[in-house]
């Protein structure tokens, strides 16, 4: 039986080795990510005790369906994104290995303080990676706000420890459930804000604008899909399973999530640079997924999270590549950019349509399920916000797609001659990665059972919080 701690320990070990054998660090990175992705497939569910102390006294790793889905997505996407950008690593190989360890640890750990440690590790790698854009000021801002977040998280943790005397998640959730939730507003809120900085909830996400808008084709997809997925999985773990929220706090935070969705989409509408559009869309999606987790709709939140992670990996790869090779990601400058890159263009289009939630793509299945879920929790205002967000998202995405496919001014028939003359290049490794990811989105949209069955398990453990109203796609059951 494989111990999941290897997922954390091996990349860390390889990271240290890679510092000694600098010449081989890229090979070590590929080896590490492949190894991790392979290991994920051999894991068995269960609780793994680290260090020999029984929980709640010692540290343990919890590998339930939720965590398994999490590490599957994180390691899978990490592998694809790394392989797509091997020539672009710029000496980040060791950092990436540490990041992989940290992200796996985040999702696997069953202890709140251990989680803090992994949060810090992951955040430090993120600060380093964000300096790849050479915009050190934004990286520094991220550092300041990230530190603020983890400080508040730690503060909340201390309060909880002082009250309940435990930091084990399972133990703490039992003990907290026994107390009136209105007594726990402050520590819950502190932990929320601590995580919200990384999850990109309004108004704690001031760093996103600077950091995401300068990302290259490696860092962009890593941040927007892998880091975002990891942080959202932690968020879901804490707020759907560990910390019970009172009605008041739950409602306020769901409203905050919904506002994040709207603010993100509206801000994206007013932007013209591709990466800026995408970063605000990421903020919106994070708000949506967080609102779903907070409403206790874990299963559909995971579905939407997967959709967002897959789509954003494609979108940011292409956008980053555009910026890397042409020096701009201004939509107006890149009219007709897909004319010479049809496969990447089709992948980009599929990702964008899936993100909007249009049928035949996986995003449609997840959007239907999440709407059914919200309606069945008798919430009638959140769907209005989500559908409004969808209209706005569709508008700016279609505007962008139309521009990238069909060049030409208004009133003139679109022609090849109007296409941008900037030299866009997309390496074949990237094209292959994009094809793989978009095929997954297509399969998920046409044969939802394939992804559905794998994901259903991640909800089953949480059946108490997730009412079982899965959209069974048989015309209603």
């Amino acid at each position: 039986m494989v111990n999941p701690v290897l997922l954390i320990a091996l990349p860390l070990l390889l990271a240290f080795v890679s510092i000694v054998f600098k010449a081989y660090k890229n090979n070590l990175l590929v080896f590490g990510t492949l190894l991790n992705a392979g290991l994920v497939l051999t894991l068995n569910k269960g609780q793994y005790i680290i260090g020999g102390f029984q929980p709640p006294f010692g540290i343990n790793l919890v590998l339930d369906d939720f965590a398994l889905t999490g590490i599957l997505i994180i390691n899978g996407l990490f592998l694809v994104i790394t392989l797509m950008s091997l020539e672009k690593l710029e000496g980040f190989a060791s950092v990436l290995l540490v990041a992989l360890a940290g992200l796996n640890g985040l999702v696997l750990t069953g202890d709140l303080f251990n989680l803090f440690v992994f949060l810090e590790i992951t955040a430090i790698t993120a600060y380093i990676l964000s300096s790849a854009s050479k915009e050190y000021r934004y990286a520094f801002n991220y550092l300041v706000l990230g530190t603020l977040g983890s400080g508040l998280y730690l503060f909340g943790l201390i309060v909880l420890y002082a009250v309940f005397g435990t930091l084990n998640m399972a133990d703490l959730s039992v003990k907290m459930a026994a107390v009136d939730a209105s007594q726990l507003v402050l520590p819950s809120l502190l932990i929320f804000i601590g995580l919200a900085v990384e999850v990109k909830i309004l108004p704690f996400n001031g760093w996103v604008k600077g950091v995401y808008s300068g990302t290259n084709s490696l860092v962009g997809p890593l941040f927007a899909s892998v880091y975002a997925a990891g942080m959202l999985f932690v968020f879901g773990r804490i707020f759907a399973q560990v910390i019970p929220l009172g009605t008041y706090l739950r409602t306020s935070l769901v409203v905050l999530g919904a506002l994040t969705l709207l603010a993100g989409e509206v801000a994206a509408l007013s932007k013209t640079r591709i990466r800026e559009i995408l970063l605000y869309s990421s903020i919106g999606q994070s708000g949506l997924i967080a609102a779903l987790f907070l409403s206790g709709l874990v299963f559909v939140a995971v579905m939407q999270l997967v959709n967002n992670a897959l789509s954003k990996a494609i979108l940011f790869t292409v956008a980053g590549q555009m910026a890397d090779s042409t020096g701009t990601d201004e939509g107006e400058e890149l009219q007709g950019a897909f004319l010479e890159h049809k496969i990447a263009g089709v992948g980009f289009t599929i990702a964008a349509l899936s993100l909007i939630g249009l049928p035949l793509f996986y995003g449609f299945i997840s959007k239907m399920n999440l709407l059914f879920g919200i309606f069945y929790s008798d919430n009638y205002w959140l769907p209005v916000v989500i559908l409004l967000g969808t209209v706005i998202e569709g508008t700016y995405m279609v505007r962008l797609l139309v521009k990238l496919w069909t060049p030409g001014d208004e009133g003139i028939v679109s022609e090849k001659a109007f296409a941008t003359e900037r030299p866009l290049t997309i390496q074949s490794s990237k094209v292959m990665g994009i094809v793989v990811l978009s095929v997954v989105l297509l399969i998920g949209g046409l044969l939802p059972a394939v992804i559905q069955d794998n994901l259903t398990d991640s909800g089953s453990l949480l059946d108490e919080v997730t009412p079982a109203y899965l959209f069974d796609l048989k015309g209603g059951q």
Partner: protein
Amino acid sequence: MTFDIVVILMFLGAFSAYLISKASLKAGAYATTVFSLGALAVLLMGRSEIGSEFSVLFMNFEVTVIGWYFSGVMVLVYAMTSFFNSFWMDKMMYPGSYNFLYLFSLAGTLGLFFASDLITLFIFWEVVVWSSTFIIPMGKSRRAAVVYYTISSIGSMATLYGIMLVYRISGTLVIQEAFVPLKEDPLTATVVFVIFVMAGLTKIGIFPFHIWLPLAHGSAPHTFSPVLSGGLVKMGAFIAYMSVAILPAYEAFEGSLKIMGIPLQLYFLMILGAISIVLGTLMAIKQEDAKKLIAYSSVANGGYILIGILMMDQLSFAGSMMHLFNHAIASAAAFLAIAVVAYRTGTTKISELGGMIHRMPLTYLTYLIAIISLAGIPPMGGFVSKWLIIQGLADRGLMFMALAAFFGSIGSFLYVFRPLAAVFLGQLKPEHEHLKSEPLMMKIPMVILMVLILYFGVLPKWLLGIIGEIQVAAGIEPVMMSGNTILAVNGVLNTLNVFMIFGFGFLISLIIFLLMQKSRRVGLMDTYTSAEFIYTPELYHYAGAFYAPFERLYQNHPSVEKFLGAIAWKFHELGTVVNALFFSHKPAVTVFWTSVILVMITLGGAGI
């Protein structure tokens, strides 16, 4: 051959058309013709299989009479237009993708009309929307595609909310069962009705959602405008039919306030339909571009169709169903005629054209017959359907609607005459002296459409028979015919007699024409003004400001475009405000907001 194979084959056909286009563009374009004609043949032959049910993947279908009728109309328009595709292959930005999306959207409409559950319905609705969204920007305008998508998506998202609400209440998505519990609850039924019908309104182009039509129809590729205007708009009528007939609205709103026997909810929509008729007519009169003109006439005709469907009675409903068919083929024929002109001359601006009858007489005849039908003049199909609609309205005493319908008919004389006079009649421009006649492949669909328009205007029995079946299926009295006479409460209409009278009149004028002295052709530039020669042919064109005195009557009209544009701009501004408030490059701003949230939520929590 069954319908499930058709739906699957059409989707596969779309992919194969793309692959064939990679080998040869012309062959790919002909593939669209072969596949859509095949679908048409199967539909016509498979009429006996109405009522069959099938499932594909997770989607469920049932072939109903109305679904069969709508898909027949749609496939006919697609098939006729597809003859034109091959001529634009070398002008198109992405010809292969165009062929693919062309068949893909057709397959989507088939799935939509056969859907037996609400999710399947919604899936295909969205499939058609996004596939057609990517065809439009290959034409003259990128903005048109975005506006089209946004307006469509406002409608479809509202409908999706309605679907979810229905599912929450009734626990089923099967179309025939889902709405049943609503009959007991008029308030919820009103909410569901209003939001469910939204997708229909946006698609038909009912005021105030009409703004996408002139933009998209006017600037889409010439081969796609006929499909947009003749075909895809009819999807909206299908949703409108569902909201009235399947809900069923008249039963659910039995207890609500009624105006002339029409529940207020429906009456309100009828008023929107009437506004669309008036507005579409007035705006069409103003247009300088032939395609935009027909697009606005589609807005007006959409108003007729909506009002007729909402009536759910013996006459108006039958008229509306028939008008749907008549408008589909007439508007497709008119757009195709303009496409021929655009193919040969490269422009659709009225003032740059003229005298086309001398170079392409068949196109002129097609356009003439199409617009006579659009305007509702006998002996064309459009007359029969408009007559039925007005009969029904007058019978119920709905004078406001009837007036609008009447105004629309009279007004359409004004706007259809102008392209006829200015594009096809009048003087041929010197640069058009050497134009060639229309190619054979363009003649085929135009002749077919012409024959259909005339045939169903004279002998509408077969068509009205199917419409009668639809009416029986919807639980209303079917339209009655004896021989070639349509029986209505306030009078009868014998279409054959009407045709005879017109035919007789035509014969007499033909005799006079032949007996009279033959006219002598004078070249456009063969003239002078105050002893000055003019060398710019445009100045001799009389189409500019054709109806200036009439247009002056409403030149300062309020514009809903401006209003909607202002709303869109407000969203844009909101984005900038949000950006300035929350997304700052200064960490201090974030720290400030964090403290605010922390204090506010904690204080609020302490108060509880």
